[in-house]
């Protein structure tokens, strides 16, 4: 059986050929199914590196969605394990890019996964100073303001 194949072009010129099931996972790209079969579809704000990861994720998730119900629980666990490994081995900069890509392409599962990774990273930090250090944030509080906020939120630091 012939599958419809689509070509996605990243901002830096890399091309990815993917099938319809992959494209459908992105709410932004779904409409192009009607229009762009056979032509390149440019995705201007996602680089090749990130688009590769997106495609990888989507391909893995197609397999499960198409699977039959009897094997869904074990394949569900396996998929979850795959997701965990997938996201955990990335560094945070890549995760941020992935978040923005998944946001733009509207791929809910990937977006949730990546956001949760950052949330977990934040939760692992001991206090607000470690959060700033780990995530590269410069505080915009004055000393007084920070003291005020700390006073109301002190219990976190035990």
């Amino acid at each position, binding site marked *: 059986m012939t599958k419809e194949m689509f070509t996605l072009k990243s901002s830096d010129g890399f091309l990815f050929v993917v099938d319809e099931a992959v494209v459908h996972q992105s709410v932004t790209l779904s409409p192009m199914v009607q229009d762009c079969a056979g032509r390149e579809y440019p995705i201007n704000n996602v680089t090749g590196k990130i688009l*590769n990861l997106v495609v990888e994720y989507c391909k893995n998730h197609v397999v499960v969605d198409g699977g039959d119900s009897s094997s869904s629980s074990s394949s569900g666990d396996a998929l979850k394990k795959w997701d965990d490994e997938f996201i955990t081995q990335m560094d945070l900069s890549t995760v*941020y890019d992935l978040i923005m890509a998944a*946001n733009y392409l509207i791929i809910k599962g990937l*977006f949730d996964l990546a956001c949760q990774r950052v949330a977990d990273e934040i939760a692992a930090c001991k206090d607000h100073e*470690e959060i*700033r*250090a780990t995530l590269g944030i410069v505080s*915009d509080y004055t000393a007084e303001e920070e003291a005020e906020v700390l006073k*109301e*939120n002190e219990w976190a630091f035990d």
Partner: protein
Amino acid sequence: MSGIFSFSGDEEFFNGGSMYLSTGSCSGVYLPPRKRLRVAAPSLYSSFNQKQTSIEVLPDECLFEILRRLPSGKERSACACVSKHWLNTLTSIKANESLQEVESEGFLSRSLEGNKATDLRLAAISVGTSSRGGLGKLQIRGSGFESRVTDAGIESIAYGCPSLKSLSLWNLPAVSDKGLSEIARCCPMLERLDLSRCPGVTDKGLVAVAESCRNLNDLTIDSCSGVGNEGLRAVARGCSSLRSISLRSCPRVGDQGVAFLLAQAGSYLTKVKLQMVNVTGLSLAVLGHYGVAVTELVLSGLQGVNEKGFWVMGNAKGMKKLKSLSVTSCRGMTDVGVEAVGSGCPDLKHVSLNKCLLVSGKGLVCLAKSALLLESLKLEECHRISHFGFFGFLMSCGEKLKAFSLVNCLGIQDLNSESHLTSTSSLRSLSVRCCPGFGDASLTFLGKFCHQLQDVELCGLNGVTDAGVLSLLQSNNVGLVKLNLNGCVNVSDDTVSAVSFSHGSTLESLSLDGCKNITDASVVTVSKNCYSVNDLDVSNTLVSDHGIKALASSPNHLNLQVLSLGGCSGVTDKSKACIQKLGRTLLGLNIQRCGRISSSTVDSLLEQLWRCDILY
């Protein structure tokens, strides 16, 4: 372009000359290898790796989604302290959007005042209280146009504190319907709302509250120029739990709103306060007919109500449960009104009339005869009351009268009554302040009539001398507990001697502030004869070290808790040891303006009597 890559999985060649990639674990292949800083344990990270991207690249909606997924309040609190941007993002997460449980009980309360009341603090409170028991009560006292609380701060409280039960906003012009509507929408458990001097709030905000906060039971609106009748009507329709309503100085509120509210809610409203609103007799008539559950009524400054209004209110005989009535500065309250209320409200226990210039003894006597359960009457600046009215009232009153108070009534003259007394009064508490005509003759009459006085207050009365006070107390058969003679300059040591002798076992509080003729002799007799005294005020008298010494060496082991020596220039450093001895039981000490107590003595007293609250 010609990077080295490996691939696995599907392979399809594209005829175009460009390279493509299929699935495979190729992350990192397209980037030239980079040197990265290797750093030790994250907790020792002091400088951020410049080559790594900061999370600040993410747009706000992504940051929102990340913060929404934080597991618990502990992490949210830590994130609140990271930066203002993060705090603002956190506070925009509504309670039902976050993934964690938000406490539904509001155990915590916060009060912000003046320049400490800011949107930032509100945001911090919103995050900080949400998983530590929840915010139940919030009170913000703004400072007018300099206030730094705006709708943004109120909205952050709304989103983070769904358990809010009591909200009090004073003097915040920047808060408008927008903020109040969010509170209404997100805090459906709101029970108490108090808005004072918030001109930005209009009917729209009240309508939002009425539609969502079905548990509202206490509403106060003071000086909110935007609130009018529409808002009150909405509250009447929506809030069937309303028990207490207080409206003050709202120029746009009138009969249309007030009468509607009273008619609708009269069967469950218990407290009604109408102060300086433009209502007419119509609203009072409605109240009189429909206010079947009202127990407490305060009416003040109702310029639009005439005599008929009060008459109808009483004669409607609908307010059968009214227990407490307070009327201030209402020109329509006359003897007719007093009589009508007395007869229409059989349960009336407490009446207070202030600046009701047309009420005279006639009305009082009618009140006494109809309100048989009356327990207390307070009259202030009712200048038409004469001593006839005063005595007439006392003599006509039922057996339940316990307390009577006269303040600043210029119509009282000092005359005894010649009438023959058949019974005695049950009066327990008598208070007469600043009535220049009141003097010894009145006290003589009262002495004949009131034998059960326990609490006597005669303040600022030049006409009162020793003879008067003693004749007041001569037939007393229960024992005086509190005696206050502040400002009665013609009272001397003889009174105190006699009182301490006759009432030494019961007297607990003695106050002689400003009695210029009181000397140490009074204090000596108190220390000898009074066993139970725990509050002694001899400020601005001639009491000196000798008196203090007598107190300290009293044979009765006085358990003095409050001692006031303000302005006693006779008390010097020599009393330090005696005060320390008294200090063992003292909870409050006033040594203000004692010119001869040096600051070193004050310092050592502050140190030694640490349990005591010292004014100096």
